[in-house]
């Protein structure tokens, strides 16, 4: 089967996005399955964003922020971590594999780590197969 996973990635402006940028300027090759959305801080991520991404067909959602202690806004990444942990518990209850939602800290100098992360996550999505969330919402007896 020719399954190409789609991963929606939320990267914080100050560390993770710069790290991804470094991967690009260093000409590192990595899986093209990622769709990056730049946000100012990982603390800006409302759980709604993650759930909407799944609802609209993302096979995985990746959140990247600054390493603990490095947040440009002091503690945004800690808030992100707590919301992420709550989301993980919630999606597990909803029957969604925990691996579909990942959180990693990427600093501005970690272009290589970022490319490896994307490759690994893409591999995980390939083993998990396509997400069933979108199709479960298309109930046949509606309207």
């Amino acid at each position: 089967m020719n399954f190409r996973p789609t991963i929606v990635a939320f990267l914080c402006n100050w560390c993770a996005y710069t790290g991804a940028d470094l991967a690009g300027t260093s000409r590192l090759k990595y899986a093209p399955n990622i769709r990056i959305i730049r946000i100012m801080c990982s603390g800006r991520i409302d759980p709604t964003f993650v759930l909407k991404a799944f609802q609209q067909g993302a096979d995985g959602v990746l959140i990247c922020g600054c390493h603990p202690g490095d947040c440009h806004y002091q503690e945004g990444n800690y808030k992100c971590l707590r919301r992420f942990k709550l989301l993980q518990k919630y999606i597990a209850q909803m029957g969604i594999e925990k691996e579909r939602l990942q959180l990693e800290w990427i600093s501005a100098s970690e272009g290589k780590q970022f490319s490896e992360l994307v490759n690994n996550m893409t591999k995980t999505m390939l083993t998990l197969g396509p997400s069933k969330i979108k199709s479960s919402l298309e109930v046949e007896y509606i309207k």
Partner: protein
Amino acid sequence: MPLDTITSKPKLKLAIYWGAACGGCCVSVLDTHEKLLDIVAAADPVFWPIAMDIKYKDVEDMPDQSIDLTLFNGAVRNSENKRMAQVLRKKSKILVAYGACAYMGGIPGLANFFTKEEIFRRAYEESESTLNPEKIRPVPEYEVPEGKLEIPVFFNDVLPLNKVVDVDYYIPGCPPQSERLIEVFTAIVTGAALPPKGSVVGALEKTNCDECKRKKTDNKKVKKFYRLWEIQDDKETCFLEQGVICMGPATRGGCGVRCVEGNSPCRGCYGPPAACSDPGAKMMSAIGTMIDADKPEEIDEIIESIVDPAGLFYRFSLPGSILGRKLS
């Protein structure tokens, strides 16, 4: 203009129907007490299964758009609910999703944590009071010598009304406060300018916290979450600050904060506030800022004390939430 002064206008036609509901919404209409007399003075109920004897066929025979206002309460759980939703949509000028179940799925919507097969297995085979050695299950159609018997088809999902038909307005609540119903009804009867289609009426734009009189500070830091019976509520401090999960921050105001006034945390029956589609996501967001820990293990420990986040945060809104149901 008070309701009882309207005498010259032709009477409106009112329908009240229940889908997958407990009956509480219909009772909330009766809970208008003596104001009910004003309601029936201004409107003739033409269809109201809890109070009147009328057959579905009679409703189907009514001319299209002949009912002025339909209050549809209850979720859509089976083919009967769906059929009546479609019939009433056709026959009504204004269709209102009345109450939490019609609005977002409500308590029956918690069945979306299970599949139809799981529900049937539990109900017809496994439950302690069931004796069914032949494992007989209800079937929608059954041939008997006298002809064919039919019962409604049970869907795999519980659906809010707007997933099945077009809905004009939503009145949230489990059940909606009767005072709010009278306000909305008066507006329709007096011909006041109605809000845009799709609005939530009979409720506020802001959250319940805006209305709540309990003492609140900005310093919401929680080391452990408690269930209500695990602590001694001081009856004046914000529930969240005491570590009890209260859905106030993710719930639309309008109920008069009656649960909190009765020293019980908000359960979220009024649904999310304006400009928010998913109350659970908002609640996770709010709780995320309150957890007083930075180390992953400590955070895990605190989250451990929230026993059932999905059931708690989506108690009244699972089918209408972003994910809608548990994956099977």
